[in-house]
Structures are given as C-alpha cells and as structure tokens.
C-alpha cells in the first residue's frame, strides 16, 4: 500500500469515528433496544454469566441469545465505565469497517483509489450512520462478517485460514444473522456451477465446515427455542400486528436512499457486467451476498435493517470495481489529461450520501433525559415486586433503569402469549373502560403506568382515558409545560376488580 493511500485511509477511518461519535453525543441517550444489551453486559460484569433467566422481562421468562458480544463488552467494562463502552466501542467497530472494506475492495478491484472510495462510502453509509447511538450485536457483527469475507478471499494462505476459522467462530457466537454468510456461500457455489467455473477445493471445504459449525452452534444455544417454536423461530415470535415493522415490505426509493444512490446505481452496473460479460469469480462472491441478502430479506428471514446494512456495504465494495472500470475507460479518452475523477466523485457523493447520513443519524429515536429520570424514580420509590406498564420499546427502560418487571418488550422469543399481551397493551392505552383496564393490570400484576411524551406522540394520546382519582394517583410528573422537552407521568393503581365491583 502506498503511504499516501495509507494516510487517506487513516483519515477516512478517523473521520468516520469522529463524526459517528459527534452524532452519538448530539443525540441524547442510546436507542431503545440498547438497554437490553446494556443489562446483559452489566449482569455478566456482576455474576460472570449472561441473564438467560430474566425475572423482570415479561414478569419472568427464559431468554435465548448468543453471548459473545456481551462477554466482549463486559471485558472492556472492567476497565472503562459501561456508559463509555456503550457509546465508544460500537462506534470504533463500525469505524473500522471502512478499513476492512478497503482491504476487500483492493483485493477485488486491484485499485487503491477505488478501494478508498469504497471505504469512504462505507464510513458514511446512511443506514450505518443511523446506528451511532445503538449498542447492539449488529455493531460488532457487520465488521466481523466482512472480515470473514476478506479472510475467505485469501483462504489459500494458511494464516488467513486460521483467521477465517477464528472470526467465523466469533461471528457464529455473536449473532444468528451469520447465516447470511452461509447463504451467500451456497449461492456462490451454485453460481459457479452454473457458469462452469472450476471451484477451488479449499473453498468448498471451508464452506462445508462453516455450514456445519454454524448449525451446531445455533443448535447448542437455541435448542429450547427450536424444540418449542419449530420453524417459527425464524420469525422470532414477533406479534402479528408489528411483524411488518421488523420485516417491512421493501420500498425501493427508501432503500435506495438508505444505501445511497450512487453505489446503488454503480452496483447494478457491476452486477450486470460481472454476471454477463466479465464472469469475474471474485465479483461472483460479492454478488452472491447481494442475492442472499435480498433473498433473505424478501422472504422475511432476517430483519430488514440488517439486510440493508449488509447490502449497502457490499454495494460500496462493488463501487470500487465500477470506479476502476470508469477510471480505465476515461484514461482511454481525450478528457483524461488531469486526474479530475476523484474530485467529481466526491462532489456527486456529498449531497447523495453525507446529507442523508447526517439526517438519519439525527432522526434516531432515543428516550429523553426526562423520561429516563422518570424510570430511575421508579427504582427508588416503588416496591421491588411492583410491575410497570410502558410501551413496547420502553420495556427495557423499565428493566434497566427501574429494575421492575414489565409487561412487554422486544425480546419476543419463547413468549407463548405474545400476541394477546401486545393486544392487551394496546387496550391499556386506548380503552375508555376502567374495569377493563384494571382487570388487565391485575392480570399482569402491574401497579404503575408510565406515560412518556414519546408514548403520547406514538399513541396520539394526551392521557389515559380511564384514569379516575379513586383508583389512580399521579405519583410522578416531570412533563414540561409545553411538552417539548419530553418528560413522563407515572400513575399508581390502587383498585382491583373485586373492590371496584
């Protein structure tokens, strides 16, 4: 690698990290789902074990998940405070992704300039930038998957074989989404057979090993889940009413903006060229990942957000091939006197990438400081066995900050009555009948109801319609008068159905 390229690459990585961190600090607090992961890391820090049996979530339940991410974070949390780890470390992981993308792109396109552009595109990919405030397994998984791909590309070298085995092992213990890689490999084999390409024996061996290893680890950790839910485990037991949120039908314009317009168009061109004209086997591998991602997302087998992240990065890598081809083409024309291509490319990318990236980072939904204070108040002022009602996404705030049991959160697996719970939560927010509400609160052993400004916006609700002074006391209120700064009200229920009758 040329020194100039190394400087540029370092600059891209640094720039990505600084901007991610800036946005992470501009937006208050972490995204809603992060608090589940924080709690797991904290538990490992305290006991050395993940919380596979959670007494607070859904009033007590079993959890199934892969633990590597939590152990890694817990290790760092021994040295640095968890709050710092939660903000800084995921952003470091994703800031290193441009470096991995550079290595893959250089290996495929043999162009350092194109690889640098691929790295830049990855660093500021809108869909990835929207995760600046997220503390979740995907933050580690995405770089790991691409590092695995890089090791696979160089599998003939022994050190990369060991590197592949190690990283694949870690990925398989980080998230089941690693299946995306396996699926890509299978499609790669099929494409190669269709194109009469001679497949490297070592590659077949690696693919077979990866497949078996992945299946084995998943069976090891999700044995109970598979036995209980059968094939339904794929859809994570998500309530029917919100399944479209997790697996939305693909809206092409929205998807194009999130993966950025330029790499998307370039990607289509490269896929066409590689498949029908060049028959480039390196590109085949990446195209296989594009196909596998699209296939899995289309059939709702992996969450849409993750598929889009993966898709976006693969497109960025393919962009390096497009850039190199374009550079070579321009070199043959009369307008090739000066190296103006990089400048023009940056000018094109600026409005189509950096702006959507910044906007998506700022539009992430996170709880406000006032809302979090309300949940912290619960921890200090309510009985330990009390149950708290909040919206689905706020479920982890109850277990993390309030340390009380919730009615629902987004960890749906192994919950038998998830659909009826979801419906009951909806009823609790919208019913006008006090008996119905009290009956449901009693059913789930809930004594406190939290009404945050987030809930007010989402449910289009000013207050609960069944509140009466006889049964419900307002025990906490930190709403700002104009409601703009966020805040929350907490009500305590005194009635039971029998008393009420």
């Amino acid at each position, binding site marked *: 690698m040329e020194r100039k390229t190394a400087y540029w690459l370092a600059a891209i990585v640094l720039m990505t990290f600084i901007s991610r961190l800036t946005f992470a600090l501009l937006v208050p607090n972490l995204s809603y789902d992060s608090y589940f992961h924080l709690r797991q890391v904290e538990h490992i820090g305290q006991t050395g074990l993940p919380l596979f049996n959670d007494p607070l979530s859904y009033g007590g339940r079993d959890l199934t998940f892969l633990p590597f991410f939590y152990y890694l974070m817990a290790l760092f949390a021994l040295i640095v405070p968890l709050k710092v780890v939660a903000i800084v470390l995921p952003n470091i992981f994703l800031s290193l992704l441009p470096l991995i993308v550079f290595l893959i792109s250089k290996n495929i396109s043999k162009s350092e300039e194109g690889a640098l552009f691929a790295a830049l595109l990855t660093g500021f990919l809108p869909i990835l930038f929207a995760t600046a405030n997220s503390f979740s397994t995907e933050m580690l998984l995405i770089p790991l998957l691409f590092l695995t791909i890089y090791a696979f590309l160089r599998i003939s070298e022994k050190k990369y074989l060991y590197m592949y085995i190690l990283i694949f092992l870690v990925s398989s213990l980080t998230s089941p989404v690693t299946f995306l890689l396996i699926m890509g490999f299978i499609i790669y084999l099929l494409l190669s057979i269709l194109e009469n390409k001679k497949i490297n024996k070592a590659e077949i061996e690696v693919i077979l090993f990866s497949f078996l290893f992945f299946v084995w680890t998943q069976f090891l950790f999700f044995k109970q889940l598979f*036995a209980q839910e059968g094939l339904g485990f794929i859809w994570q037991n998500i309530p029917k009413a919100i399944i479209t949120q997790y697996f939305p039908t693909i809206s092409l314009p929205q998807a194009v903006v999130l993966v950025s317009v330029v790499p998307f168009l370039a990607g289509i061109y490269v896929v066409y060229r590689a498949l029908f004209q060049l028959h480039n086997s390196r590109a085949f591998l990446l195209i296989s990942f594009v196909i596998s991602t699209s296939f899995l997302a289309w059939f709702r087998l992996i969450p849409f957000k993750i598929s889009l992240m993966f898709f976006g990065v693969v497109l960025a890598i393919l962009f390096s091939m497009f850039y190199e081809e374009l550079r070579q083409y321009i070199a043959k024309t009369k307008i090739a006197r000066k190296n103006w291509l990089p400048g023009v490319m940056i000018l094109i990318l600026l409005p189509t990438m950096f702006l959507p990236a910044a906007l998506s980072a700022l539009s992430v939904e996170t709880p406000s400081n006032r809302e979090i204070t309300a949940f912290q108040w619960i921890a200090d002022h309510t009985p330990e066995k009390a149950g708290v009602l909040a919206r689905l996404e706020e479920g982890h705030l109850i277990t993390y900050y309030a340390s009380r049991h919730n009615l629902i959160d987004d960890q749906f697996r192994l919950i038998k009555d998830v659909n009826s719970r979801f419906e009951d939560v909806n009823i609790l927010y919208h019913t006008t009948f006090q008996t119905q509400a009290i009956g449901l609160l009693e059913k789930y052993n809930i004594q406190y109801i939290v009404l945050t400004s987030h809930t007010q916006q989402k449910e289009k609700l000013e207050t609960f319609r069944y509140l009466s002074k006889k049964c419900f006391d307002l025990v906490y209120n930190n709403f700002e008068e104009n409601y703009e700064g966020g805040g929350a009200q907490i009500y305590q229920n005194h009635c039971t159905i029998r008393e009420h009758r």
Partner: protein
Amino acid sequence: MTSKTKKEKNLQSTRDRSLFLEHCLKHQKLYLSLLFLMMVGVIFLTNQGAEKVFFYGEESYAHLVAAEEINDNNFSFTTGGSYPLYLLTKILPVVYVNVIPPLLTIISLLSLGYILRKKEFSQEFIFFFLLLLILSPFFMTLTTTISTATIFFFLFLLTFALLIQSKRYWRYLAILSVAVIPLIDQFSGLITVLALLFYGFSLKKSERGVSWCSLGVVLLMLLGSTIWLNTSFIQGPFHEEHLARDLISDLGGKSGISFFVLILGVLGFLLAWPKKRIILAPLYLFLPLLIPAYIYNTEAISELSIIIIFFASEALLFLINYKWQLPTLRQFTFFLLLLGIFFSSLAFISRLSETGLSMQEQEVLAWMKENIPSGTIIASFPEDADYVSYFAQKTVFFTFHDQDKQKELDNTAIFKATYVDQLFPILVRNNISYIYLSTTAKEKLSADQGLLFLLKNERFKLLHSAGEVEIWGFEQR
C-alpha cells in the same frame, strides 16, 4: 528438520486416525450393540425414573386400544390394521408386550446388517449406516413404541434376509413374513411390492421364482386387506402433523432425523447421483413415492428416514475417503459432525423424558376408568385422546387417526369456543358428556377466555382433578 518433523506428525496422526477407525470397524458388532443397549437403556431408565407409563407416543396406545377392541368384539374388519398386534396380545399379556418393540428392532438391525453384508457393502459403510441408524430419533421411536413402522421394518427386513438365503426352504419362509405386511397398511404393502420387483429383476431368471411368488402373495394380500379389512393407506396420524418438525427432530419432532443427518443425506444424494451405482437405483426410485407419501401423512417418516440415513452414510464415507486440501478443517469437520449427531440424539432423549403421561394424568385417568360410566363420550385434546381411550377405557370423541373431518372441526370448535352458544350445541349434538383437560391442554388454553372461562357455567361440574389435570362433566339436559 522442522518440516520433516511436521510431516512425520501428519503421518502419525493419519495412522492414528485410521487405526481408530479400523479398531471400530473390527469390533463394530460389539460397539454398535453397546451403543444400542446404552441408548435404549437410557430411554427406559429415564422413563422409569420419572414414573411414567412404559410406552412412548400416542401410537402405542392407539394400537393397544384397537387390539383390545378386536379381542372384545371378536374380529372387526375395520380394525384390520392392528391385526398383527392383536395376534401378539392373544399370545402375550399386555405387560409383556413391552419387550416386543426392542426385540423387533434388534431382529431388524441384525437382518439389516446381514442383508448389507450379503450385498457386499463395505464394512465402513455398514458401520456408519448402522451407527447413524441407532443414533437417529426415528429409530429410538421404533424401539420404544408399538408402531406400524416397528412391525413393518421387522417383517420387511426379515423377508429380505430370508430371500437372500442360499437354501430354498429358508427362502420359502419369506412368503410367510411378507404375507403379513399388507395387513399393516396399503403403503407398507406398496413399498414391499416395489422392493420385491427391484429384487426380482436384480436376480438371474432362474432364481426369480420365490421373489415372484412372494410378490404374488403380497399383491393378493394387499387386494384382500384393502377390500375386506378396509386397511387405510397409511395408518395415523397419531399426533399433530408438522412437515418440518416431523422430519427434523431438532425442531421438536417426536421422531425423524437429526438436522446433521439430513445435511449429510442431501450431500450423499448429490454425490451418489453421478456415480449411477445400480445398487442405489431403488433408493432414488423410492423417493418419488416416499416424499408425496410423507406430505400426505407424516407417519411415512420412518421409510423416508432410512433412505436419508443411507445417503448420509454415503456422504460420510465420501468425506472420509476424500483427499482434503485443508487437513486441519477435515478434523474439525468430522468432530463437528459427530458432535452434532450425538448432541441431537441426546437432546431427543432428554425431550422424550418430558413427554408421556404425568403422575397426575395417570391418576385422573384411573379415576375416570372407575367412575365414569361406559358408553359415554369424552372430548379431549386429540393428542390426549389415545391415552384416555386406553387408560380410562372410555370412548373419546375425536383422535388424530379418526380421519373424520366433521369430528375434527367439531373438536377444534369445542376447544376454541368463546361463547356458550357456540359450545353447547356441539356438545349436545355429539352427545359429549365429559371434557378431559390434561396439563398440556391447560397450558394451551387461555385462562380468562375461551373454554376455561366457559367451564364456569352452571352446566359444567368439575368431577375430579389432580394438579392441573381435570375432568369436567357436562349436563346434557
């Protein structure tokens, strides 16, 4: 110097590996017998430890009930499918019928080993095939359940073990065993017909006599049992069917095969295809019959499983003899495969201990036997129906193997009813006087709506309960 040492080490490890395999192959009878005994022993001991009834699965009790019905009513044409079991229960008391499934599977295993050796399959193949077979959940089910599959495999393999004998009188004995197969069901008869056809054509013209004779007998018996005994195409189902779950035991199925064996099976299928080995031709030809049959009724899993295991053994053998470019991965891959298969078998065994009747269920069923008058109809979850029939010796409204669509709809409507206006007419129309609720049924029903809520009505009376298990009486009026 270093490279030499490395080479020597590699050679040594290869030698060690082949020595280990050779040792296993040399003593395969011992190791496979020990493995079989261990697996069966663990299953039975776990069952005994949990004080559960001896047989696993609803199917055992469905057959026992059917055999008892034949005993009671002399001979009924409608229960012809359970005729072999009826014959057994005539000879042996029911308590001793316990030993029949393991005994039949041992004879089946011995016959299978004998056939494979006679047909000149390699020692390695026989070892892996029997190893995968013994470890597979479907085989464990055969060993612990009185099932049509257990009887079918015993008779089928015995027939072919006799047919390949060199002495003629042994071969003629095969006609006796093969004649019973069509009494099980039409599907078993059909498979036997196809197998005999393949076998007959594989022999010299002068040696085909007994095969054609057996084929003729099977065809006649098949026709006769279909017309006079009213045998079903495939017996069952005896449980709620799920295509994926019934095939892959890891997904919570009550039989089937491990996911790893399925992967190996697919691999073996693809690898064996280009070789066009004549011995594998029947297996490829059986698949177009077995796959639709499995989709039609998942009780056909046993026959399908044995073919998948056959291909899986082919794949395992291929992987062992294949020259790996990355020897490190070879060791990892084999280790993973073995771990995966063992892990899957152990998971299945541990799940088996969670199934079957609990003490409370046994207690309530015993109470029902003593206190509920005969001739009354009891509604229950279909998965509990055969237990109720056998242990309480009462008529149940609907079982999975009834194959009566209207009854199935009514039974579903009973347990899904949300209003008495929906529930009462069904109960009255079908003359149902009792509702049995097992622990599983209570778990599946919602506590504050649906049937459990409707049971608070004055026309229902809780007659007896133990823990979560309940029997409710319904006043017909």
